[in-house]
């Protein structure tokens, strides 16, 4: 009996200790923050400012006390707490002091939740003069993150975009079907893809090849960007026509492009699996002798050392690739174009009551913009240890990572990229550190700057209500029209449905926004 009581009381003790530990943790966290934020310590430099930093959104997870973090803490006399920003972490009220967002729609959503601090443009000019001289030339970017006449993010820009799309052809297939010149026009493109589908380019005697496939499941549009581009439209994009803003999903040219794609599908040129294919799977199809041309990012396909080219070589040594421009059709040549916008830096709302911290943040931002040492350390690591110039002994140009640090995950472990802010860097830095060959390839093959979203992908007030549903509606109709499941004339039904389900409202908002903020 005695023993039993002892056991029971021991269990109770354990439970109560656990409980007090739990509550202890909570109260500890509560008391910690006001102490640091007021910065009571009188010694001017001794007490580091504590910064909660949302790590680069592409990084998988937080690495605490990494080499780069320590370097930053040392240099700027701060204490960094790296956190991973997710919608859930924001919902629980944990807003980092500084983090990055991918596009204006995200900025609008976060702003609407009241978690961002508005930024004074004069402060940008004053605290980050180098950045400001560059971004001033792209001042329209400020409009994309201006809500209620206040600026909510620090926009960044990029003009030579390595992720612009061009066409990556199987050169050996072109040769095999007797096409000497890499297709430049839509007609030549059509001839080539028909030949790929019909003339057995892989020479196995079986009709198992297609010209091309698409990505109907993409999250933002319809796939076949270069074909729509040849007709001068991009579905879902807001486009300007004679001063009016219209949506690329519902224009007459869109119907023409669909008619073409539909014909190709009926003739067995488009892989029926375009409905389920992704960028990953169509690269595999190119390697595996199933299709002869894909849309590929310039940085991944244009140079001999580009990733898709290298992978192709490894998997299919006989294949030859050639990178070319998007085909030129009745509407010119073009593809999906994200425009000059890059990511956006935002500051958490709590910082507005902590001028000392804001000062510190701007000091770091300026360094990440124009101080070569800081930029290199946060984005590349230590020269000679983690990276070097591609050409040995060079002092500028393309950079490469040293073996052991070639994978992004390896670098993340050291903190490289976690605190990098990407395209906040000045033009001068970019000129020095970019690969001239890639720049040339971009200039030679990109269709940009032909168009981009007329509102630079700004978020419309009713986007949250309608946009996703309208995109799925478009994808559904387009996939069915291309695959011949419904007649081409159903495009008109689609347009009516699109308008009725919120499209008209969005078009009106888009025009209002364009008139007020973007019209030159």
């Amino acid at each position: 009996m005695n023993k039993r009581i002892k056991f029971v009381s021991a269990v109770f003790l354990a439970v109560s200790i656990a409980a007090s530990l739990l509550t202890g943790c909570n109260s500890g966290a509560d008391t910690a923050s006001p102490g640091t934020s007021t910065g009571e310590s009188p010694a001017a430099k001794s007490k580091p400012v504590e910064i909660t930093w949302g790590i680069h959104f592409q990084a998988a997870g937080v690495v605490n006390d990494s080499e780069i973090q320590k370097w930053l803490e040392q240099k700027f006399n701060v204490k960094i707490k790296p956190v991973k920003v997710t919608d859930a972490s924001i919902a629980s009220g944990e807003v980092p002091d500084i983090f990055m967002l991918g596009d204006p729609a995200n900025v609008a959503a976060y702003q609407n939740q009241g978690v961002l601090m508005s930024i004074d443009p004069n402060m940008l000019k004053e605290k980050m003069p180098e950045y400001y001289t560059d971004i001033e030339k792209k001042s329209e970017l400020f409009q994309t993150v201006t809500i209620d006449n206040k600026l909510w993010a620090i926009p960044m820009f990029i003009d030579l975009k390595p992720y612009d799309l061009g066409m990556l052809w199987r050169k050996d297939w072109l040769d095999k079907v007797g096409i000497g010149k890499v297709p430049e026009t839509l007609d030549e493109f059509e001839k080539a893809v028909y030949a790929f589908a019909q003339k057995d380019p892989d020479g196995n005697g079986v009709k198992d090849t297609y010209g091309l496939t698409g990505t109907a499941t993409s999250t933002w549009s319809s796939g076949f960007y270069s074909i729509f581009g040849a007709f001068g439209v991009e579905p879902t994009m807001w486009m300007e026509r004679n001063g009016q803003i219209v949506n690329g999903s519902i224009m007459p040219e869109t119907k023409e492009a669909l008619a073409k794609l539909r014909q190709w599908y009926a003739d067995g040129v488009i892989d029926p699996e375009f409905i389920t294919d992704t960028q990953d799977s169509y690269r595999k199809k190119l390697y595996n002798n199933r299709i002869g041309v894909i849309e590929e990012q310039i940085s991944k396909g244009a140079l001999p050392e580009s990733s898709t080219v290298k992978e192709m070589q490894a998997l299919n040594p006989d294949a030859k690739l050639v990178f070319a421009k998007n085909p030129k059709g009745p509407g010119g040549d073009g593809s999906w174009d994200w425009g000059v916008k890059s990511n956006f830096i935002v500051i958490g709302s709590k910082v507005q009551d902590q001028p000392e911290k804001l000062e510190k943040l701007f000091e770091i931002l300026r360094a990440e913009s124009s101080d070569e040492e800081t930029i290199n350390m946060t984005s590349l690591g230590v020269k000679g240890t983690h990276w070097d110039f591609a050409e040995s002994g060079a002092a500028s140009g393309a950079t490469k990572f040293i073996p052991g640090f070639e994978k992004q995950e390896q670098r993340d472990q050291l903190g490289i990229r976690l605190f990098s802010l990407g395209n906040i860097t000045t033009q001068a830095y970019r000129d020095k550190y970019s690969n001239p060959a890639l720049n040339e390839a971009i200039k030679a093959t990109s269709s940009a700057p032909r168009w981009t979203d007329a509102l630079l992908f700004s978020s419309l007030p009713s986007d949250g209500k309608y946009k996703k549903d309208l995109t799925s509606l478009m994808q559904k109709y387009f996939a069915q029209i291309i695959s011949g499941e419904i007649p081409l004339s159903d495009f008109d039904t689609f347009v009516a449905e699109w308008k009725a389900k919120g499209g008209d409202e969005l078009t009106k908002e888009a025009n209002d926004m364009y008139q007020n903020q973007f019209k030159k």
Partner: protein
Amino acid sequence: MKTIKKHGELLTLFLFSFAFFFIFKYGPLYGVIIAFKDFRVVDGIWGSPWVGFQHFQELFQNNEFYRLLKNTLLLNLYQLIFAFPAPIILALLLNEVRSRHFQRFIQTTMYLPHFVSWVIMSGLIIYFLSPTSGIVGEIMGWFGLEPVFFMGKKEYFRSIVVVSAILKDLGWGSIIYFAALSGINPELQESAIIDGANRWQRIIRINIPSIMPTVAIMFILSLGGFLSANFEQIINLLNPVTYETGDVIDTYVYRVGLQQFQYSYTAAIGLFKSVVGLLLILGANLTVRKLSRGESGLW
């Protein structure tokens, strides 16, 4: 005090489960009030303004909602008709297998797919069903049939979901019925054999009635999730062509709610689902009790 001492062990055990349910199940219920508020992160749960039933009105006035509801209900109905009995049948069949080794082997291999994530599983399914390189199309070719692009036709979507769900969780779901079958008193079987009952008669008269209480409980529990669908499975199989038949409440919530910070609206949808689920459980429990004259059912 004396009774506390007397039942100390039981109370201690109870305390743990009480703490679990209180902290993880009942505590968070407080957050449900955001369904009646306009939740903004900065204002917090309590500070956000009350809006009454506005989010529910918005939900019921949305034309999309009825399509989603229909898809969800149909999908679950099919699941109930086809996927629910499958593990029971498997358990009954395997129970009759004489070789213990063979039985164990089958059991183990059939558990395996349960541990494969839906992301991988969907990739495999899309690959198998590919009209040009998939094994299903190949087999259809042997019989002179034209391969069908199953993933690209909206009329096949529900069947694919149900069949793949059966394939994946058949073995796992049968565990509980196995346990129930092994609990049957062997004397029942022996006396039935002496009385000259054949296998089939024994299954009908002994095995099935013996596991009926378990079946009833599983049935009631599965009804609780009638407005939910396996989100992970569907989001990975869905494509633009199959939206019309495959888009369910959960995928919609993901698309418009979680991706766009509409926490209150999403919470309202969740609450609606839970209320319907609760009503279904209560109704099913009542029916089961009536039918079994109070002998089975959850309570």
